[in-house]
C-alpha cells in the first residue's frame, strides 16, 4: 500500500502524499501550481474550458482529452498530464496553436486553452480532420464568440505546420495499491481513497466499506463535489481494477465490464446497431466519453441516463457482485424507484451482458434533446421486436425521461405481441403508450411533448429503413 500519488505534469515528476482525494485537477493546477491557463467555465464537465490531456499507455487512444474540473487528483497516478502550458516548446507554438492563431480561431480566448487541448490530444492520436470527426472531437468545447467556423478551419490545417518537439509519454510503472487518508480542514471529516487493482480486491474492499462511494469516470460523482459541495468520506476508485473494463463477445452476446468507458465500448455497441453507436456517440462529449463508464451510467440509476433504455430493449442482463457472490438480473429489474436500485450494501455492478439482435429482430434507439450533441436526453426511446412470420412474438420498448426510472412500456408492447407487425397495430400500440407513462414537465421538455414524441418515435421505429433522419445524424455500419 502506498499513500503517494505520482504522475508527470508537463514533463516533470509530481509526488503528492495523501492529497485530498476529491481535490480536482483543475483546482490543484490553478491554486497549488499557479498554472492558470486551464480555465473553469462551468465546473461540471460541460464546457471544456478546463480540458487537459492525459496520456496513459494502457488507454485507447493513448492521449485523452479530459475535463480537469471533474478529475480527482489520485486518479492521475502513473499518468502523463499535459496542460496548455506544456504544449508550446521554448516559445515555439505547437502546430495546433499556430493554426488557431493564423486562422483567427480565438476571440475572447477564454475557451481557447480547452480547444487547444482537445485538438492537441487529437493531433497526438493522429486523428482525422474531416468535419464530422472534428465536430465530435470538439463537441465538448463550447465557444461563445467564434461560431466555431474558424476553429474548424484551423483544425483542418493543423497537420500543415512543421512538427515541434512534444512531451513524451511516461511509462506507467506497476505499483502498489494506492490508499490515501486525510482530514478535511473545513469539516473535520476523515477522507479515504482506495484504488484496488483486482476484482477480488474491489469486492473485498467494498464489502468492508459498504458506505463507500464508487468512483469510475467521475462524470457524475465529480459534480457532487463541485456543485453540491458534498464531502465524500470514502472513495473506491475502480479505474485500476484489472479486467474490469473488458469487452468480450461471442456469436450471441456482448459482455461489457462495468468499468469500460463509453469511448471504448462505442465500437462494439455500434456494431450491434448503428443507432446504438450514434446514441453512444452523442453521450456527453469526447472528454466525457473518455472518462464515463457504461457501468456508472447504469449504477447511478438516473432516469435520463442514455444507456439503460437501449440495453433494456435488447434484453441486457446485469452481473452483480458482492464479496464472492455473483447474481444475474434483468437490467430492467435493477431500477426499482427514483434513486433506488436493486443493489445490496457492498454489492456492485460487475458487467452487463447484451444479447445480440438476430435477423428475426428489429431494433432502434432514438434520443431527443434541445441540442443535438452533448446534451442530456429530454427523451430516449429504444425499441426491439422479434418477428415470427408477420407477427410480433416479442417486444421490448424502453424509455428514458418518461418516468422516475428507465422503464418499459408494457401496455404498448402488449398491444403488439401476438399481432401482425402492421400500421394499424402499431398505431394501437402508440395509443396504448399513454397508459404506460405519466411523464413530468421540466426544463428539458413538457409532459405533453414527451408523450407525443415517444409515440412518434414508435412510428419512426415502425418505418424502419424509411424512417426520417436529418442530415446531421451519422449513419454507421
Amino acid at each position, binding site marked *: 500500500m502506498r499513500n503517494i500519488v505520482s504522475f508527470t505534469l508537463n514533463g516533470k515528476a509530481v509526488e503528492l502524499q495523501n492529497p485530498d482525494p476529491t481535490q480536482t485537477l483543475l483546482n490543484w493546477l490553478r491554486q497549488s501550481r499557479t498554472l*492558470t*491557463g486551464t*480555465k473553469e*467555465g*462551468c*465546473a*461540471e464537465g*460541460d*464546457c471544456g474550458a478546463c480540458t487537459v490531456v492525459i496520456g496513459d499507455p494502457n488507454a485507447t487512444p493513448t492521449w485523452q482529452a479530459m475535463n480537469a474540473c471533474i478529475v480527482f487528483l489520485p486518479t492521475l497516478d502513473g499518468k502523463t498530464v499535459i*496542460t*496548455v*502550458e506544456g*504544449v*508550446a516548446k521554448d516559445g515555439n*507554438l505547437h502546430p495546433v*496553436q499556430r493554426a*488557431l*492563431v*493564423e486562422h*483567427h480561431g*480565438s*476571440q*475572447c*480566448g*477564454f475557451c*481557447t*486553452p480547452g480547444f*487547444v487541448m482537445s485538438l492537441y490530444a487529437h493531433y497526438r492520436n493522429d486523428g482525422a480532420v474531416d468535419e464530422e470527426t472534428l*465536430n465530435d472531437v470538439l463537441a465538448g468545447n*463550447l465557444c*461563445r*464568440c*467564434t*461560431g466555431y467556423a474558424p476553429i*474548424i478551419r484551423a483544425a483542418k490545417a493543423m497537420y500543415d505546420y512543421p512538427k515541434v518537439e512534444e512531451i513524451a509519454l511516461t511509462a506507467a510503472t506497476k505499483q502498489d495499491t494506492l490508499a490515501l487518508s486525510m482530514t478535511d480542514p*473545513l*469539516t473535520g471529516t476523515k477522507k479515504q481513497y482506495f484504488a484496488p487493482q483486482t476484482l477480488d480486491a474491489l469486492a473485498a474492499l467494498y464489502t468492508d466499506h459498504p458506505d463507500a462511494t464508487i468512483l469510475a469516470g467521475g462524470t457524475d460523482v465529480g459534480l457532487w463535489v463541485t*456543485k453540491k*459541495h458534498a464531502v465524500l468520506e470514502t472513495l473506491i476508485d475502480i479505474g485500476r481494477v484489472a479486467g474490469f473494463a473488458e469487452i468480450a463477445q461471442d456469436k450471441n452476446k456482448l459482455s461489457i465490464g462495468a468499468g469500460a468507458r463509453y469511448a471504448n465500448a462505442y465500437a462494439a455497441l455500434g456494431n450491434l446497431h448503428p443507432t446504438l453507436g450514434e446514441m453512444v456517440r452523442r453521450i456527453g462529449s469526447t472528454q466525457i466519453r473518455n472518462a464515463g463508464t457504461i457501468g456508472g451510467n447504469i449504477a447511478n440509476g438516473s432516469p435520463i441516463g442514455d444507456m439503460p433504455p437501449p440495453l433494456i430493449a435488447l434484453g441486457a442482463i446485469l452481473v452483480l457482485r458482492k464479496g464472492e457472490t455473483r447474481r444475474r438480473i434483468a437490467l430492467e429489474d435493477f431500477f426499482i424507484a427514483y434513486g433506488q436500485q436493486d443493489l445490496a450494501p457492498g454489492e456492485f455492478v460487475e458487467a452487463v451482458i447484451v444479447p445480440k439482435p438476430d435477423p428475426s429482430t428489429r431494433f432502434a434507439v432514438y434520443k*431527443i434533446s*434541445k*441540442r*443535438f*450533441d*452533448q446534451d442530456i436526453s*429530454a427523451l430516449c426511446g429504444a425499441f426491439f421486436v422479434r418477428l415470427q412470420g408477420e407477427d410480433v412474438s416479442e417486444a421490448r420498448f424502453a424509455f428514458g425521461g418518461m418516468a422516475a426510472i428507465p422503464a418499459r412500456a408494457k401496455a404498448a408492447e402488449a398491444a403488439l405481441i401476438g399481432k401482425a407487425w402492421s400500421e394499424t397495430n402499431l398505431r394501437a400500440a402508440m395509443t396504448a403508450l399513454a397508459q404506460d407513462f405519466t411523464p413530468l414537465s421540466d*426544463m*428539458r*421538455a413538457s409532459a405533453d411533448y414527451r408523450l*407525443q*414524441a415517444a409515440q*412518434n*418515435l414508435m*412510428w*419512426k421505429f415502425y418505418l424502419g429503413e424509411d*424512417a*426520417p*433522419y*436529418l442530415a*446531421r445524424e451519422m449513419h454507421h455500419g
Partner: protein
Amino acid sequence: MAKFQSVPHDSAHKHVTGEAIYVDDLPCLPGLLHLQPGLSTRAHAKITKLDLSAVRAAPGVVCVLTAHDIPGTNDVSPTGTGDDPVFAGDEVVYAGQAIFAVAATSLAAARHAAALAIIEYEDLPAILTIADARAAKADLEPEQLMFMGSTEESLRFAQHVIIGNLRVGGQDHFYLESQGAECIPGEDGDLSITSSTQHPSEVQHLIAHLLNKHSHDVRVHLRRMGGGFGGKETQAALIAAMTALASHKTGRPARLVLDRDDDMVMTGKRHDFEIDYKVGFDDRGQLSGIYLDLASRCGCSMDLSAAINDRAMFHADNAYFLNNADITSRRFRTNTVSNTAFRGFGGPQGMIAIERVMDAIALHLGKDPLEVRKVNLYNKMGRDFTPYGQRVMDNVAPQIIEDLEARADYAARRAAVRAFNASHKYVRRGIALTPVKFGISFTTTFLNQAGALVHVYADGSVHLNHGGTEMGQGLNTKIAQIVAEEFQIDFAKVKITATDTDKVPNTSATAASSGTDLNGMAAQRAAQTIKSHLADFAAKEAECAAKDVIFENGHVRAGAKEWTFEALVKAAYMARISLSSTGFYATPDIHYDREKHTGKPFYYYAYGAALSEVEIDVLTGESKILRVDIVHDVGKSLNPALDIGQIEGGFVQGAGWLTCEELVFDDQGVLRTHAPSTYKIPACSDRPDVFNVTLYEDGENTKDTIHKSKAVGEPPFMLAISVFSAITDAVASVGNYKTLPDLHAPATPEAILRAITALQQAGET
C-alpha cells in the same frame, strides 16, 4: 501600415498558450479574501429571519457582508433608478438576489460557510411572467408610443388586414468567463479594482457612491474579458461592488469570481418579448400600416430596460418602410432577474417582429416571402422615413439582397426545397432570406463620446490606451492598426495596454457596437496631435511647410531630409517636443427627443442579409441548419478577418437564441436552466454545414467614420432571424403553405412539433 489587413487578434498567441490573464488568473496576494454570495431562493418575499452566526463562525471566515455594511448608497443601478441593491434589505425581489456575502481565506471556506446561513422568508405575491405583469399593470415606466402617419385610417382602407402574435424567449449571455472582480486596497482608502466589465467608468462611479468616496479614489481597470456580449455592461458592477466593500471593510484584497450557476441565476439576460401585430397591406404585400405591440419582461429593476425597449421600437421597421405605424411598447416589472443588455440590445426582438409579419403576409397571399420583403424595402421614392422620423440615407439593403440572391442561388434553391418537400413526408426543408438594417449610435445621445491616450516614447515605441474594453471582438487590434496607420509604423510597435480609468476618464460602455467607431476616432486624433508636433518639428528642421512632411512606411520625409520614425522621435524628444496626447471624439449630427420618440438617433445604419436553409424532422421537431450564406456590410473593413469573425460568431449566437437556447423559470420563479447541462448554447456541430460569409464588396460608410468603416459587433446577430424564418417555412410545408405556423422562439424540438401538430390538426378538421 496595418490598415485593411487581417492582422490576427493581438492576444491570439497568448490565448493559445494560456498566458492571457483574466481576473481569476491574477496571482493571489497575501491575505487575499475569497467571496461567496448567499442568494435568495424566493422570487418575492420578506426576510423574516437572517441568522448568519454559523456563517461567521465557520472555519476561515473573516467577515460577512450585508446591506448594513454599506456606508454609502446600496445601489448599482446604471441610470440612478436606485432599484439595484448590492444586497437585499428586508425584501427580496427575485430568486438569485444576493442577501449577503462571505469573505474567507479560501474559496472552499467561503462556499462552505455560505451554505450555513439560516434564512426564513414570508412569501409575497410574485409577478413572474409578462401575462402576470400585464394583469397587474406592473409597468416599470409608462407605455411608450412611436408613430407615423395614421395607422387607423390606413388599415381601414387596406386590401388585407391580418393579426398575429409571436413570443420570443430570452437568452443567457454565457460568456465563457463568468463575472468576476478583484479589489486591492491602497493608501488613503483608495481602491484598485480589476473588473471583468464592459464599463469600467460606471463600476468606478458606482463603487464611489457605494462607499461614500469620490471617483478619484477608485480605479477600475482590465486587460480583457472572457466574453461580454452586453452581459458585463451593467452586471459587472454588482460583483465588483462586493469585492470593494470587502476590501473597504477589512483592508485586505478581495476576489469574487462567480460559479457558473450563481452567475446564471444572479445576473440579467436578454429580455423575452410578447409581440402582437395587426397589419394592413395590398395585393403585392406592401404595407399600408401596422399596429405593433412589443411587451417585454424586464425583471425586478429598470437597469437598461428603457433604452433596450426603445431600441426594439427603433428596429421594428428593420429594413422596411412601414408607411403608417403605431408601435407601442410595454416594459414590465417582474420578480425575476433584471434583464439587461445583450448583443442587439432589443433590436433583435423588434426586428423579428416585422420579419414574422413579412412571413405572415407572404403565406396569406401565397407569395414568395422574399418578394414581400423586397416590395417593402426602404427606397428613395418617398419611402425613406423611419417611424421615428430619421431619413434612411445610406440604404444598401436592396443591393445586398440582390448580391446574396445571386451568390446563393436563391430562386433555384427555393424551388429545390419545394420539390424536396413534395417528395418527403417526414423530413421537411425550409429556406429564407432576411435583411438586417441596424442603427449605429447609443440612442442616449450623451454616451456617444470617447477618449484615448497615446504616448510615443523616446525610442519610438508607442503606448496606446483608450476607453474601450476588449471582450474578444478585437477592438484593441483594430485601434492599434489605426494608430500604426496614422504614424505609418509597424503594428508591433504599438503596445496595447489595459483599459484603465486612471488613463482615460468618464468613458462610455463598450457597447452598441460603437467600440471602434468611437475609440478608434479618439485614438486617431491623439495620434494626429502627436504627429502634428512631429511634423512641425520636422518642418522646422527641413525648413519646409508642416503640410509637406510625409509619414510613410516607417519613415518621415520633410524637404530634403528623411528620418526613420524612431530617429525623428528621438530628435524631437531632445528638442523638448511633447510626445504624448489625449484624443477625444463625440459623434456629430445626432439628436433624439425621447418624449416624442422622434429625431435622428443614429449616425448611420449597418446592413446585411442572410439566406438560411434548414431541415426539420416532422415526427420529433428536431432541426438542423444545412447552409447559410451571408453578405454583410462593414463599410471599408479595418480588418476583414476580425469582421468575418464577428459575423460568423454573431450569427451562430443568434441562431442559438432562436433554436436551442431556452430559459426555463419554474412556477416559483426559480431559473431551472442555470448551467451548461441544462442551458444549451450552440455546440460545434450546430454551426451551419455550409457557411459562406462575404463582406459587401461596395461597402463604404457614407459618413466620416474611422477609415469609412462600419460597426460590426451587433448587426450580424440579427442575420440569424433567417433561421427562424426558414424553420417557419419548413413547418409551413406541413400545412401546404396555406397557414402561418404557430411557431414561437426558441424553435426547440418541442416548439416545432407543437406548431406542426397544430397545422396537422387544423388540416384534419
